[in-house]
């Protein structure tokens, strides 16, 4: 029998991995990958709480589905921003992108 705490511990570790990628990576695409890992960690939490804390309702799964949809939006807009930054500044390393306007 896997307890709720096991799922929460797994998602905490995945979240920390994503945070590490967001804080230390220079490449904009790698930062977006870290954000995707963090969103997935949150989704594990939502579905786990759905099963253990409120099994009668499906609200946790619905929340997870909406988060997945918004993550897809975020990936599309984020990657479009990376492409636009690369086109005008010719770098996608976020520590070199320090201009608000060209």
């Amino acid at each position, binding site marked *: 029998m896997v307890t709720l705490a096991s799922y929460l511990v797994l998602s905490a570790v995945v979240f920390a991995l994503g*945070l590490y990628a967001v804080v*230390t990576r*220079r490449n904009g*695409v790698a930062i977006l990958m870290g954000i995707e890992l963090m969103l997935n960690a949150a989704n594990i939490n939502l*579905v*786990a709480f*759905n099963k253990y804390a409120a099994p009668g309702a499906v609200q946790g*799964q619905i929340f997870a589905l909406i988060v997945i949809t918004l993550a897809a*939006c975020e990936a599309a807009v984020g990657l479009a921003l990376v492409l636009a930054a690369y086109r005008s500044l010719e770098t*996608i390393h976020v520590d070199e992108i320090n201009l608000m306007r060209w």
Partner: protein
Amino acid sequence: MTGEVIAFYALAAVILISGLVVVSSPNIVHSAVALVPAFLGITGVYILLGAEFVAGIQVLIYAGAITVLVLFVIMLTEGGTGLRLPQRNEQGPIGASVAVALAVLLIAGVTHTTWGRGAGTLPAYTPGAIGRSFLGANLLAFEGTSIVLLVSLIGAVIIARKEE
């Protein structure tokens, strides 16, 4: 050790190992490809939790679409694996200690809390229950999400378009 426990630990190992590759590989293409086993492991966790519909959507959107999108953008920008450039900034030790501190804090929090068990059981067929809920009690959230999808799609096209 029941089958559920064995499956959980196997899936957790897959997720954590491929997650480590994602955050630490110097080759950006390896990072992007390692996202696929991480997402598929999370799919397995959803199936363990009785959320078959979420698992299917996870495979379609994350393991399929987002990974391919990330690989496309890597190929369009970096022009390769990025091995010639340093992939990490100078905040490595600070970032690692912050991440480890957050993980320790969260793990201590969740293991020292007594979680109550809710009453009831999961519906036998969760996709049906989700569909009824999306077109019933959660209709507003459903429609709002569709508007957000449309807006972000148009926004992405406009942002990524070449300027004349």
